[in-house]
């Protein structure tokens, strides 16, 4: 397979890594040539991140070795990796918010003149690199004030400045709009043309097919396929990723997927206050009812007095899931916090079942926050105590009763936990998320708001969570789902709202919510006017630059 005349630029040989009882990487071999864009794909939890962390010196393998240009290297820290010409752009950007772009790029390898930082040289070097690759950034700007897409350019510049010959991009498009992502891939092509080896870690197949030369597929910590991109297809990749083809996967969605019965309970046995016999995800069972959640001309200012939410109006009816899309920081978080009463509205109203929400009063919506450790749970408290939050009333608390209630929820939602007394931090991401969802669904409020339903959640739990959300919808709840995964919104929502700079700039029935349309709206580009009736805007007074169509007819 390899060109024997010249060793691969970087090669991972027989990498094995175990965390506790989880075998994250199991004898993985991977070779990347000079000038090659090599995609590493797999679902969440397939072992991609662990593998890349080993390559970047963040973890040490239990077995196996890393070779650079044919020679084994020991990577005990990122410093070693950098010294060997490796660069990594992390999924969660690792930048210093209070430092300038130039300082962020050069830190760790600073130009120095007579013992003093040479700021001019730093600025020039950064400007030169940015110009060469068309990565427009102002070297003097403070990173904390830049939009996230620009920050990623700073990360790339950091690697380039260190003359990385191997560039690892870990889920680089997670923070980008589709348009920005296209730009990124053009730049990546340029790097490859100059001989840089690029490792593109992703779980999005379109990106793999569009941008890579070769693909390695991981599943359950093992390599399950190696392909030349030109000679493969999405279906072939999916089969390698999940062990079956896409068509079958879709059909199987309703049923428990090859997991032990304890892991996956049938959906109809699951939720509290939800009708049995859930419909398939992504299709509404019955007609949507009246508006349970209404937002009218809502304005919210952030701490600097800037309008984070600027005149947003929409409604969510009983029995529908409304998706909320947008580039991170477009006002989704502030909108959700205002709807849930955690943040005070500047002006405008949020009506729940016709009654206005008052900030700081008891929360009247079920709410699954995106920040699991920061808001949705108290990691150090027991599972039982975490499941109690929101249901504590009166004065006396009977610990035995609290534990019984928790045990009931654990069983009903098939949460995998050793004990309800153990800290919730001991649960896997998927089980912790199910616990949060279980707690919120047990609130029995008509409106459910969910942020990033499946972030950091393994595949099995993802499907369960989607099914639970669909079941909640079918039971007549009004569900608002914010997600940065457009595919998730397409799978779940009946219609999708897109936010840009604090406004809802588009409302698309799910049938029209293509990547192009969503991407254009997310960047504020003008859209072809969506089809649909005019009921929505009139009734709700939707503000925004676009006339916003109603989902009703188009989706039906």
């Amino acid at each position: 397979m390899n060109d024997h005349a010249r060793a691969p630029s970087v090669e991972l040989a027989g990498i094995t890594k175990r965390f506790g009882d989880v075998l994250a990487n199991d004898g993985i071999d991977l070779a990347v040539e000079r000038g090659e864009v090599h995609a590493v794909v797999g679902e969440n939890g397939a072992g991609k991140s662990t593998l890349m962390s080993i390559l970047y010196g963040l973890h040490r393998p239990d077995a196996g070795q890393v070779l650079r240009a044919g020679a084994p290297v020991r990577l005990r820290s990122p410093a070693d990796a950098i010294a060997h010409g490796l660069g990594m752009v992390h999924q969660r950007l690792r930048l210093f918010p209070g430092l300038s772009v130039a300082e962020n790029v050069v830190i760790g390898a600073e130009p120095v003149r007579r013992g003093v930082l040479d700021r001019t040289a730093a600025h020039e070097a950064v400007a030169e690199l940015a110009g060469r690759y068309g990565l427009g950034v102002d070297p003097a700007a403070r990173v904390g004030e830049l939009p996230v897409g620009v920050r990623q350019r700073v990360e790339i510049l950091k690697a380039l400045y260190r003359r990385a010959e191997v560039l690892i991009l870990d889920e680089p498009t997670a923070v980008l709009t589709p348009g920005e992502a296209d730009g990124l891939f053009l730049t990546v092509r340029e790097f490859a043309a100059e001989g840089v080896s690029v490792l593109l870690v992703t779980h999005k197949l379109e990106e793999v097919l569009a941008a890579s030369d070769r693909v390695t597929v991981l599943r359950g910590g093992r390599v399950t396929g190696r392909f030349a991109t030109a000679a493969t297809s999405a279906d072939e990749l999916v089969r390698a990723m999940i062990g079956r083809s896409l068509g079958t996967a879709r059909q199987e969605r309703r049923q428990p997927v090859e997991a032990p019965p304890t892991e996956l309970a049938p959906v109809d046995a699951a939720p509290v206050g939800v009708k049995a016999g859930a419909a398939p995800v992504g299709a509404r069972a019955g007609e949507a009812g009246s508006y349970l959640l209404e937002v009218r001309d809502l304005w919210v200012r952030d701490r600097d007095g800037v309008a984070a939410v600027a005149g947003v109006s929409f409604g969510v009816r009983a029995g529908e899931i409304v998706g909320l899309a947008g580039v991170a920081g477009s006002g989704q978080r502030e909108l959700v916090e205002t709807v849930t009463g955690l943040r005070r509205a500047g002006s405008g109203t949020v009506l729940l079942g016709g009654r206005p929400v008052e900030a700081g009063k008891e929360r009247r919506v079920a709410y699954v926050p995106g920040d699991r450790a920061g808001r949705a749970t108290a990691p150090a408290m027991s599972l039982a105590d975490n499941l109690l939050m929101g249901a504590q009333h009166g004065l006396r608390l009977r610990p035995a009763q609290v534990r019984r209630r928790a045990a009931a929820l654990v069983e009903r939602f098939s949460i995998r936990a050793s004990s309800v007394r153990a800290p919730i931090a001991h649960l896997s991401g998927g089980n912790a998320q199910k616990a949060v969802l279980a707690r919120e669904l047990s609130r029995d409020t008509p409106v459910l708001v969910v942020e990033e339903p499946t972030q950091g959640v393994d595949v099995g739990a993802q499907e369960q969570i989607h099914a639970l959300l669909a079941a909640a919808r079918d039971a007549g709840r009004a569900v608002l789902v914010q997600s940065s995964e457009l595919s998730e919104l397409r799978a779940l929502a009946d219609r999708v709202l897109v936010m840009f700079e604090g406004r809802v700039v588009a409302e698309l029935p799910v049938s029209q919510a293509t990547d192009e349309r969503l991407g254009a709206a997310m960047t504020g580009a003008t859209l072809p006017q969506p089809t649909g009736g005019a009921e929505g805007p009139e009734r709700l007074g939707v503000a925004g630059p676009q006339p916003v169509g109603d989902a009703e007819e188009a989706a039906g």
Partner: protein
Amino acid sequence: MNTFLAAVLTATAPVVLAALGGLLCSVSGVFNMALEGQLLWGAFTAVLFSHATGSAWLGVAGAVLATVLYAALLSVPAVTFRADPVVVAVGTNLLALGLTAFLMRQVFGSGGTFSSPDLSGLPTLAALGLDLPVLGPQSPLVPVAFLLVVWASWWLGRTRSGLRLRGIGQHAEAAESIGLRVPVYRHAAVLGAGALCGLGGAQLALGNVTLFSEGMSAGRGWVAVVAVMLAGARPWLGLGACLLFGAAEALGFRLQGFGLPQQAADAAPYLITLLALVVAAAMRRDKERTV
């Protein structure tokens, strides 16, 4: 006026040194509340070494060294083991109180206050031939304290290690991912703060006076902590906060001469420090309230 200014500088110098140490820690991302105990330990060891060697300067050197060692009691638990620095600091502050009082009895044979003709204090600048106004009656450590603020400001902004230290404090993970060894910098900051507290303690015991008394740091380390909170990463602001405290202390002494009860003079620095904290916090209070 000159004598008042001199009194302000005298009162301020130990606090400035401790606050500067705390600021370096805070910039590196470690909240250092152990300054009070370290100042006390510095003062005691300065007296111990000065008494043993008969040289004030060896006393200063001994204090610096001993306090760096003492600071390891914070840096190892807090940086290496990632223990809560606040809890550790509560412990080391208490330890310093007990240890100094205990050793004082063991070594000098009495509690309370120790002073002796054998104990050599720091010379004044005037005695060294620098008879400047205001600074003349001060020990050389006083101008050193203020010059160190200037140096720290420059170092943080203009040097490689200063930039790295700032980065580490802002985002330790990011610093790790570019190969910086975060614990090394943090240890250095905490131990450096120890050295500065050693200097501060030496100034307290051998500069301001020539004696050691139990608990003689008398809350100066806490004032330094507050100064750090006020300053953020800006040494100049920290200096201002310390001067405010020094002025309050000096003024309190003055006013005692005019019949102000001693207790009011004792309380004044704390109240003024708290007031400064309140005013600063009120000024930067968020406009937006998340209920």
